[in-house]
């Protein structure tokens, strides 16, 4: 999995180039007809805002609040998504019974869930966890179904011929066979879970990166908004990478085909 050193150079360079473009566009108030950078805070202003956030001493609380919500929603989505996915992928009966309502719920955006989430759950904390859960559920569910349905029927037949019962079939054949696809779903789900964080923390009264971002918007503090956006981006990327690494450890036989 370790990338050769040489490949880190273009990767870092690409990030630095984006930063440079941002600095130039914002400090010179570029107007590119469709988009204008005249009111966009410069990177320097954003760094100052970030320092201000650290100095305020609230960063830790924001981070821990958001991380625990994302984590709780994500774990729930993992358990339910993989569980339902295996059932739907294995049985026509479960597919006919479970998939239609799920397909109706799938296109509903997280923001539309807010009022019902507040009504349905006893605490705002649980409502927020529920919204991050809806974000992570569907990528995990659909990739699990895809993986389970994709297991080679000859492998299943062979396992039966070798004496595998239902339980062994699931643990020894179906789950490992679907694992690469499930891990892809888990990595995408991690991203979409962060994606829904701002939406979910609109309900929050005090803490959370999403709450911080949304509050900065309502008081028109643009540099702070960008700090919040970048924090979510970095945390989302980091946790997705973590999932992929963990996934790689769990599937040592699986090596994605190399690119030229």
């Amino acid at each position: 999995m370790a990338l050769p050193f040489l490949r880190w150079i273009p990767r870092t360079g690409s990030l630095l180039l984006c930063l440079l473009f941002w600095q130039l566009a914002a400090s010179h108030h570029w107007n590119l007809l469709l988009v204008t950078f005249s009111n966009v805070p410069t990177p320097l202003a954003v760094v100052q805002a970030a320092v201000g956030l650290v100095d305020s001493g609230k960063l830790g609380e924001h981070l821990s609040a958001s991380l625990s919500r994302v984590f709780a929603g994500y774990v729930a989505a993992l358990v339910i998504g993989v569980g339902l996915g295996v059932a739907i992928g294995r049985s026509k009966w479960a597919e006919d019974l479970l998939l239609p309502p799920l397909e109706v719920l799938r296109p509903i955006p997280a923001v539309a869930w807010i009022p019902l989430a507040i009504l349905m759950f006893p605490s705002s904390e649980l409502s927020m966890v529920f919204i991050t859960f809806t974000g992570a559920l569907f990528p995990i569910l659909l990739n699990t179904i895809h993986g389970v349905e994709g297991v080679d029927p000859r492998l299943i037949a062979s396992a039966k011929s070798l004496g595998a019962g239902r339980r062994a079939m699931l643990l020894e054949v179906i789950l490992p066979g679907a694992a690469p696809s499930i891990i892809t779903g888990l990595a995408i789900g991690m991203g979409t879970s962060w994606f829904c964080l701002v939406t979910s923390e609109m309900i929050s009264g005090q803490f959370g990166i999403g709450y911080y971002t949304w509050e900065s918007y309502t008081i028109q503090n643009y540099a702070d908004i960008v700090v919040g956006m970048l924090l979510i981006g970095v945390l989302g990327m980091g946790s997705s990478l973590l999932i992929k690494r963990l996934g790689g450890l769990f599937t040592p036989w699986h090596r994605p085909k190399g690119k030229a």
Partner: protein
Amino acid sequence: MNAPQTPAGRIDIRDLSITLGEQKQAFEAVQALDCQIEPGEFVCILGPSGCGKSTLLGALAGHLQPRNGILQVDGQAVQGPSPQRGMVFQQHTLFPWRSVRDNVAFGLKMSGVGKAARRAAADEMLALVGLEGFADRWPNQLSGGMQQRVEIARVLINRPRLLLMDEPFGALDALTRLKMQELLLDIWTRIRTTVVFVTHDIDEALFLADRLLVMSPRPGRIIEDLRLDFPRPRLTELVTSPEFSRLKRHCLELLRHEEGRPLPRLSPLGLPIENNRPRFAL
């Protein structure tokens, strides 16, 4: 290697018909088949593509349900797959997520044998197929011939009454195939079991078998039942002997005589799986 105490592996097939496909597309892959196979016999089934020989094998393995007739192994009707009836496919079906050793030990794990004992048995079995030193590899790190050896070892570790083989060497190159045929005969002398070996390669069938069944195109019926008593152990030189050539000519004529329109290949799991629906996960 200890031989089984009781001779087992007798196959009784009476008036067997197998239907594949659903409703309108349904057709008889095997029709009114009668056949007895003795314990420990090495039987090759020869026939053109799509004649139902793999379908018959699938029914013996328990993956396909006969529509009509009797299908018994040692007096018991075949019901569903069982470790007693091991199956080797044309393309290996090793679990990519298990090491070679754990693949071979899988059957013993399913029957509840402890870890140390099943690993030792797997290593012994791997030595028998000439793969010492490859136990810790992943299956996709092996060549096609080696993968089939692992597959055979994985089936034989269960000491099955029947070893069912569906063109197991069909995807190998000619030289590897010859080696595998000799290896298979060598293993069979040590672990005696009834072998039903499906192929469309006349040379292969004549080289391996005690008995050769030739099947007609769909619906499959047996049109010839030949006893081959070339002395064993058989060596590759056999294929150039005059008697071998005579039998080969005989088989060629049988197959040519029965040639009809070409049919799609069937598999022991039934019809080929249609996979033309695009699959997306998002």
